[in-house]
């Protein structure tokens, strides 16, 4: 394992592919944070999208239908979560945790019914997301490695981040969202329907999580395994926080976690224990958040962040 440019290119590529599912969900999390909703149910929404994509794939073999299924199913879950959080004022953490339990149980339950098994489902009949053809880069092998095996959805994640940045900070609706997050009562007094905005944000974050889930199960190896999200939804929440709920910042933080995960994968074949490397992203999250907070505190010497 020599560290040369090619190795770095592989790391770059691996990071890109690892970070994009997280990026989608993290953008959703960032948006929710902006309207003062601590949506911990994103893990469940991502799982729902991941599952529905494979189910639709199984039945129709169509990429478009799978994408649609992923988005609609997680939006539905998000709608339920949103209503319980906003209309019924259920404690957000409670609602999120129960949504996660529910989706985990539900997807495994349905998995048994549809696929007849509960471990993992792989099948050569499943269609995966079309990859972007980078043969035109064959003249520069390094670049080719760096951008190989990417799907359009991966690229879309970055485009979406920029779009959301513009939306959040350059449009009226974006401004309204932010004002609800800063002071809901004040925003309502200005005529903004804060409840509806919050629910819609949650639903949209569900849509994004569904996309992330779909990317997870159809972007690389096309398969579904029980609880395949394995905490990625939670890592995405951490990424959302680390990125200061700012779409461009979220790109950076998702990249960080993508890097940690790809290092964990790559170090698996080395002397460092594979289990320890798997713990790496989670520990990295805590350290990163702590460091981020220290930086925040330094920036505001008087009073709290």
């Amino acid at each position, binding site marked *: 394992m020599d560290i040369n440019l090619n190795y770095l290119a592989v790391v770059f590529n691996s990071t890109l592919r690892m970070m994009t599912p997280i990026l989608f969900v993290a953008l959703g*999390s960032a948006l929710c*944070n902006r309207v*003062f*909703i*601590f949506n*911990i149910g994103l893990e469940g929404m991502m799982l729902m999208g991941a599952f529905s994509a494979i189910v639709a794939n199984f039945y129709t073999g169509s990429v478009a239908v799978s994408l649609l299924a992923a988005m609609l199913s997680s939006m539905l879950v998000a709608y*339920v979560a949103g209503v*319980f959080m906003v*209309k*019924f*004022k*259920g*404690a*957000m*953490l*409670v*609602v999120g*945790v*129960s*949504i*996660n*339990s*529910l*989706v*985990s*149980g*539900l997807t*495994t*339950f349905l998995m*048994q*019914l549809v696929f007849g098994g*509960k471990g993992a489902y792989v099948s050569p009949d499943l269609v995966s997301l079309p990859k972007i053809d980078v043969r035109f880069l064959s003249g520069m092998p390094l670049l080719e490695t760096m951008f190989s095996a990417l799907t359009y959805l991966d690229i879309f994640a970055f485009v979406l981040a920029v779009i959301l940045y513009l939306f959040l900070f350059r449009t009226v609706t974006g401004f309204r969202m932010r004002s609800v*997050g800063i002071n809901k009562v004040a925003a309502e007094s200005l005529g903004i329907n804060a409840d509806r905005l919050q629910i819609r944000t949650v639903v949209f974050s569900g849509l994004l999580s569904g996309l992330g889930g779909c990317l997870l199960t159809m972007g690389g190896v096309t398969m579904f395994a029980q609880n395949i999200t394995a*905490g990625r939804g*939670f890592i995405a*929440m*951490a990424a*959302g*926080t680390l990125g200061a*709920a700012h779409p461009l910042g979220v790109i950076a933080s998702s990249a960080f976690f993508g890097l940690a995960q790809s290092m964990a994968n790559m170090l698996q074949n080395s002397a460092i*224990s594979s*289990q*320890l490397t*798997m*713990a790496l992203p*989670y*520990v990295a*999250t*805590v350290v990163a*958040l*702590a460091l981020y*907070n*220290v930086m925040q505190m330094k920036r505001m010497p008087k009073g*709290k*962040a």
Partner: protein
Amino acid sequence: MMRSKLKRLGEPLKQPAIAIFFALLVGAAAILVTGENPLTVYAAMAKGAFGSTYYLLTTLTRATPIIICGLGAAVAWSSNYMGIGGEGQMIVGGFVSAILALNVPGPAWFKIICSVVGALAAGGLYSALSAWLLEKFKMSLAISTLMFNYAAQYITMHFTANVFLDTTGDAKMTQTLMLAEELRLPKMVETYSLHWGFVIAVLLVAAIWFVMNRTSFGYESKMSGYNVDFCDYGGISSRKVMYGMLTLSGVICALAGVLEVYGVQYRYVHNTYVSASYAWVGLNAALISDYNPVGILLTSILLAGIQTGGAAISRATSVPLEISSIIQGCITLFISAKIAFKFRGRLLRRPRPYGAQAAEGEEGEA
């Protein structure tokens, strides 16, 4: 006088009962999808949970770690410190207790004391670490405890698989060697799985009830959960409450792991606590019973029953055993809605947890 007392006792039962009812409806819908008859399935589940000595004792054995993790969660959540680290603390507790019991030299009683104390201390410290992160870095409890859950899983897996692995026998499981005979918790009833850990769990229920309702520490924590400003005014140190409650919560969840090691498997086996979701079910039990210790005892037994029943019918019918997590998730979800109706009439200010400000709370940013 009697009537109003009964009414008061019945009041807290109303919400969970309604939530359970609706959850069973959703479960029935799911069962219909599989083509089975919900009524017969539910009847079979009830039988499979409590219907025979074997089933009943299995349910109670399952309930033991759920009760304990539920108490651990209740202790923290009732003071408004909403951590979800029970799983990680249980893993740490179980792992440390097994390792110490296997490797500490000396007579049996010495091993037991070292191993149990070590495990409880480890769980407490693990949780206190999250408290420290909340205080010093404003890191939301939910995130730090969650990350620590995964970290605990993988780190203990590493040590179990690479350092303490049981290479005797043919089973290729990631587990440690078994505890010596004299160290194990005896079973309560011969040939069945129920062990004395269940009694310890029940005693713990009483102990926690006592702490929460009859000690100054319990009073301070409860008040902190209701209104932190009130406590600041009254001279209660929120910091002391935070560290105290979170550490206690970690110790309790670690105990769940210890009892699993000493009473059920006699070793530490990787992934058993995670796959059974003991800590999550315990948290749900705590939420459903509004942090009432006796309520947690009963709810845990109910939820354990749903799980055992679910396992039983999954063998007999085509309904997958995940039906139990679906029902359980629904119960908790519907309970959260009921909480809304309690708050509607109140125009009073919401309580603010210590150290939280922008970090977390009932409506908090991450």
